[in-house]
């Protein structure tokens, strides 16, 4: 079993839709949960960073962590064509700032105008 799993998609939605991106993980020791956005031919960009269970909101983006079921989600409200990218979830033990970050394979999202 991979440590972090995502449905690779592609996921295609109309502009303005609410997007739900999901990720599961296997190591219950993970404490930090991240979402990255990666545009084609670019490096990943850290979008959201949450500690332990709960929700975190930043503009149109909401990250949700459920440690009991080892499930994390990213919701995008009022999706825009500029949100079209690959979204990577990642986890870390978080004991030090150089702790290994385990990435999922990413979900490709297309927002159609």
């Amino acid at each position, binding site marked *: 079993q991979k440590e*972090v799993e995502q449905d*690779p998609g592609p996921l295609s939605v109309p502009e303005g839709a609410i997007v739900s991106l999901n990720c599961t993980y296997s190591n219950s020791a993970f404490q930090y949960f*991240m979402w990255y956005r990666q545009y084609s*031919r*670019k*490096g*990943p*960009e*850290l979008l959201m*960073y949450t500690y332990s269970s709960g929700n975190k909101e930043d503009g149109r983006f909401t990250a949700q962590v459920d440690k009991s079921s080892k499930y994390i989600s990213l919701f995008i409200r009022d999706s825009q064509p500029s949100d079209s990218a690959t979204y*990577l979830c990642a986890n870390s033990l978080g004991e*030090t*700032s*150089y702790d*290994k*970050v385990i*990435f*999922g*394979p*990413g979900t490709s999202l297309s927002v159609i105008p």
Partner: protein
Amino acid sequence: DVKVTQSSRYLVKRTGEKVFLECVQDMDHENMFWYRQDPGLGLRLIYFSYDVKMKEKGDIPEGYSVSREKKERFSLILESASTNQTSMYLCASTGFGAQESYEQYFGPGTRLTVT
């Protein structure tokens, strides 16, 4: 707004060549990382460094080495390039910014093709 730069965006090398990939960050971050990214496999950690002259193996260090002589620069070396090292190589740095907020930035990546 330059944060992490990589020496080349695209590189084509022949099997057996020695290849150097350079990464420079301007945020005074302590930690630097080299990943490779392949379709369906996600990002896999090759090596990382948490201080000058310090290095630690990641998940897939075989066939690679690294050098960190200065805090801002982290080099990845392919001692003898092979075709299975054809990949996108990404450098990243992490540290703590203002108010101890966690920061992480990736470079734009180097797409290496070994023929």
